[in-house]
Each structure stands twice: as C-alpha cells, then as structure tokens.
C-alpha cells in the first residue's frame, strides 16, 4: 500500500484517481469543515454555499473554538465526527459542486461507492477521537461562514501534514468498509455455529 501527499483543493483529477483503498495519505493546503446542519441547509433548504467547493476536501467536523475580539476564531480542539449520517450528500456534493474528497470517521456505507466511482471522489478515514493531534495540524482558521449554525458552520482551515489518513473508499469502486463487513458477516456465521 502506497503513501501519498495531496494538496487541496485539487485541480488535476489524477491526484484523486491515483489513490487506492488502503493507501496512506497526508494532506496539505486548505480543507473545509462541514457537518449535518451545514449540508441540510445546502441541499434540503437549497441555500447556495458561500464558499467554493470545487476540488475541495471536506472534513466532517464541529470544531471547539474561541472567538477573539477581532472577530476571528482561534482553535481550541478540532476533531472529526461520524460520517455515516451524512452519506446522502455525497452524490450532490460531487455532481453539483465538484467536491473531490470527504474525510470523516467510521466510514460511509455502500451507497457512497457508486457516486464516488462515477464522479472521481474519495473517502478518507481519519482516526476518530484523535483531536489533540488533529488540532496541531490545523495551522489557522482562515474563514467562517454561516456563524449562526455554530459550531456547524462552513469553516476554511489551512493545514500542514494533515493525517495520516487512510483511503477508505477510492474512486475505482473499492471500499475497505464493504470488504471488512463482508468478511465479518461470514465470520459471524462461523462464530454462531460454535456457540
């Protein structure tokens, strides 16, 4: 399994297509924080997002922050939430806005595999709960939109050596989560037979 460094936002689709399920990835550049209510506003309430999501890396997060007198936000503790709740937004994020990578914890169910394959997207698995480390890899909170949804706003972070991430679902139809579940279900039958 290969190791890669990818800088976001990406302009060359090859940057995504070269990644294979199981590969290790470190991310540089800019990433966008997003969560349930942010995506409900975009897709269910049909409000155009005030940030460019083309080629973007989206992180499932609701950061712990401190607001400074200047109006800027300072990081306190930034980590990642469970992705599965937000799987239904995968296809429109890719098709309508050109998002290329979604990063969260715990994985996406199988319904994400086809749109990621078709639209050239990947799912990155981060280590859930490892927020102390993640916070050190976020250099700055550069922008916050939709502050009224705090903490589920749209956040733009500048990152350095963000990771290590594991490619959980690649753009070629492979999903580690699907493979692990398939093997575990077979194993369960074996374990039940032993009871």
């Amino acid at each position, binding site marked *: *399994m290969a190791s890669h460094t990818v800088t976001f936002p990406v302009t060359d689709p090859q940057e995504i297509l070269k990644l294979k399920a199981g590969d290790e990835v470190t991310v540089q550049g800019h990433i966008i924080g997003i969560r349930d209510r942010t995506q409900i506003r975009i897709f269910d309430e049909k409000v155009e997002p005030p940030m460019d999501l083309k080629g973007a890396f989206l992180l499932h997060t609701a950061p712990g922050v401190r607001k400074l007198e200047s109006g800027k936000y300072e990081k306190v503790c930034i980590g990642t939430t469970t992705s599965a709740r937000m799987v239904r937004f995968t296809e429109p994020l890719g098709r309508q806005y050109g998002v290329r990578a979604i990063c969260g914890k715990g*994985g996406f169910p199988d319904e994400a595999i086809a749109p990621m394959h078709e639209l050239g997207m990947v799912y990155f698995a981060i280590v859930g709960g490892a927020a102390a480390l993640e*916070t050190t890899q976020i250099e700055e909170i550069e922008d916050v939109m939709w502050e009224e949804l705090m903490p589920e706003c749209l956040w733009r972070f500048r990152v350095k050596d963000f990771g290590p991430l594991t490619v959980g679902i690649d753009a070629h139809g492979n999903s580690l989560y699907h*493979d692990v579940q398939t093997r575990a279900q077979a194993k*369960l039958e074996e374990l039940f037979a032993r009871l």
Partner: protein
Amino acid sequence: MSIDTVTDLAGVVEDAAAHLYVWALKDIPQDLRDALAAARLRETSVAGKRVLETIHRNVNIADSENNLVCQDTGIAVYTCRVGEHFPLHPTRIYESLRNGTARATLEHPLRSNAVHTITRENTGPNIGYRLPIVHWEFIEDWDGLDVKCIPKGSGSENMSFLKMCIPADGVNGIKRFVLESIVGAGGKPCPPGIVGVGIGGTADYAMYLAKEAITRPVGTRNPDPLVAQLEDELYGLLNETGIGPMGLGGDVTVLQCHIEHADTHMTLNPVAVNYQCWAARRASAHISPTGETDFDREF
C-alpha cells in the same frame, strides 16, 4: 449542620464537578492507556497499526499540549454514590453538578453540545432540561460522596442497541445479539473501545446497566463468576470479528467487554449494548462530609 456548611459543601461539589469534567476530557486513565498500549503491540493489520499508533501520538499530544483528547466534550454523565449521612441532599448535589458542568464549559471554554431534542437549539453550556444525567446509588452507614464524571461521546452513544430476547433464546441469544451489534456498528463508535452489556431487569434497566458497565476500569471483571465467564467469552469472540481499529480491519476490535446484570422476570431476557469509544474518558473524586476532596480515588 449550619446553613453555611451546607452552602460550602455545595460549592465543593460544584468545584469537583468542574474539575472532573475537564480532567476527564484531557487525561485518560492509566488502565485505559495500558489497554491501548497492549492493543498496539497485538495488532497486525497495516491500517489497524496506523490507527493505534495515531491514537498513541494523540494521547501524548493531549498530555503535552494540555488539550482535550477528543473534541467531543460529550454529554456529561455522572455517577454518584451518596452516603446516607452525607450532609448535602441529592437535590443540592444535582444542582452543584449542573453548575460545575456549566462553569467548566464556559471557563475553558468547551464545546457545548446540549440541544432541545425537537428544536435542536442549544440549551446552554452542556446543560439543559434533565442534563447533565446522573446515576444515583445510596449507601447505608456512610457519610461520604463519590462522584464519577463520564463525558459520553455521541459517536459511541449512537451505537446503542436493545433486544428483548425471549427466555428460550438463552445465553446464546445474548451472545449473538452482542456480536451482531458490534459488527453492525463497524467503525462508527471509534473502536477499539469498551463494549458495555446490560442483561436482565427490564428494558430501561438493562440499558442503565450497560452504561454502568462502561464506567468500570478497563478489564475489571463482574464479581459473579458466571457473568465474568461470559465477559471473557464475549471479549474473545468480539475480537475474532475482524472489524479492527476504526473499522478498517484488524485483530483488535474491542479493548474489553464489561457486563452488568440484574435478576429479571421469568418471561424476560433483555440485553442492552452501550458502546464506549477508545477515548473512554472517566474521572472520579471522593468528597468527605467536611468538604475535603480526593481526586485520585477510583470507585
């Protein structure tokens, strides 16, 4: 008992709650660190080793940067053991725990997660209607108070499961349900963590017991040998499922399986599963009737 003493004691409990909440979030207990270190040695999959190595780095960075281990400050859950002669009434203990939770949230500051369950609007600094949640136990012939704070993350709490097995399902029905639940949960509850299982009682009490089970130090065994045997067996079986760290596949799916039980109706066989993530945060204090607080005590 003078009014002043009672007022002071309320302040002591509030201070303890504020300290416990932040302490639990930043400094995970030694038994958990040991269990994570053992998991790191045992894991053989590439992705699983990467996850456990990252967890190790993260815990060390939380120590050195004095930061939270995980950003999810959770829902504040406390367990209280109240001696019958402890001078502060539980209504006042509850008020102090609530005040301490709010104070810690505002002062640190901590992310506030509490929302109204229908409007989803924030209800305050990690407090709200019936928040925080407190489990009570009352101890006869004693004048102390033990408080344990368990900030419970939502990723793992969302992976809670209840089944009203029938008596004919027997113990195998319990084992099957626990195994199916943990395989179904996959990577979502941040494995490898502690699987809390509650068996017996009623539906609500089984889930209460499952929560009790996750608050025990990692690897402790139920005093009933039959239940302890079931803990050992389920622990082994769960780690054969191959779900692995963060559900990416591997040898270590759970750090432990803890079971709490109650006797039940002849027609009932309830089984509840409450998952606790690898960042199984927990901090305790003992408070004497004169207000001395000992933060090193595990109960």
